[in-house]
């Protein structure tokens, strides 16, 4: 058993030995690292929460996609219905066929024809539904995180 005298001796020696010190300038290095991290963090500080940023971006995206997909086709004959226009599927099939021919001839960008841009409204509805689902998902995630 360690005697009381030995405990006192240890206490005296440990007190006397004191603490070992880090190399000079240690505190400055710590503060420089903290300052560097603070500066990095202050580069982008959104005023709104990430959820609000997501909602705003999704809303703006849905708006523009809606305009793109549902804008009336200026080249379509008056009184014509959407079924008179080539559907998105047809358009994709045509483009795929064109592209495969072009690959054989060499690489070139397909020519964009604006008259082909009368999309099937169902495709547009699906995209808007996807955008709304992503908004709802972002909202649910934020609720789960806060609990």
């Amino acid at each position, binding site marked *: 058993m360690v005697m009381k005298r030995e405990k006192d*001796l240890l206490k005296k020696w*440990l007190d006397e*030995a004191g603490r070992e*010190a*880090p190399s000079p300038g240690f505190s400055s*290095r*710590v503060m420089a690292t903290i300052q560097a*991290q603070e500066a990095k963090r202050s580069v982008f500080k959104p005023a709104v929460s990430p959820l609000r940023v997501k909602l705003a971006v999704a809303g703006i995206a849905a708006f523009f996609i809606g305009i793109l997909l549902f804008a009336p086709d200026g080249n379509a004959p008056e009184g014509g219905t959407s079924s008179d226009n080539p559907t998105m599927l047809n358009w994709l099939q045509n483009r795929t066929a064109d592209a495969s021919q072009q690959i054989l001839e060499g690489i070139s960008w397909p020519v964009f024809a604006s008259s082909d841009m009368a999309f099937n409204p169902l495709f547009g509805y699906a995209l808007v539904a996807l955008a709304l689902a992503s908004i709802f998902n972002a909202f649910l995630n934020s609720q789960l995180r806060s609990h």
Partner: protein
Amino acid sequence: MEIDKEYALIKETLAGDLEAFGELVRRYEDFAFNLSMKITKNREEAEEVAQDAFLKAYKSLRSFRFEGKFSAWLYTIVYRESITRLRRQKPVHTNTEEFPDNAPFESDCENGIERLTRNDRSSLIHKALGRLKPEEASVLTLFYLEEMTLKEIDEITGMSVSNVKVHLHRGRKNLLHIVQTMTKAPLNEWL
């Protein structure tokens, strides 16, 4: 450092005054480094751990409850960082020593150590602490040097109070015998 001054510095830091945290770092740098050194047993590692601990303390300062000592809170972070670092290292042969419980501490040895200069004695004690197991060295440091209670040590290390007592007992016994062994060897072997 009185607790009110400590709390004031923490509040100033939380209000955005980085210089206030700099004051805390300067006050506790030896404190953090010394504990880390007892566990990692390597100066470079200990400095890295102490630096990481201060960064972590700064980031989680909002979670500090103004109930206890900042030093105890900081020590908890340093201790955990050091232990994590130690576990991440590849297992290496540690030069720690274990002595039988009934081995007596010779009074000749005590006299010999007392005759050393203060600097030589301090160097001997630091070297002897370096040969103890990390848990024993840290518990001895916290208890004798930082004058923490068994309960505080239990909170810092996550050991139970009875476990702290066991490490304290073994640490004392092993340290005394390491010192004894070292003083029997020629002086130039440990100085």
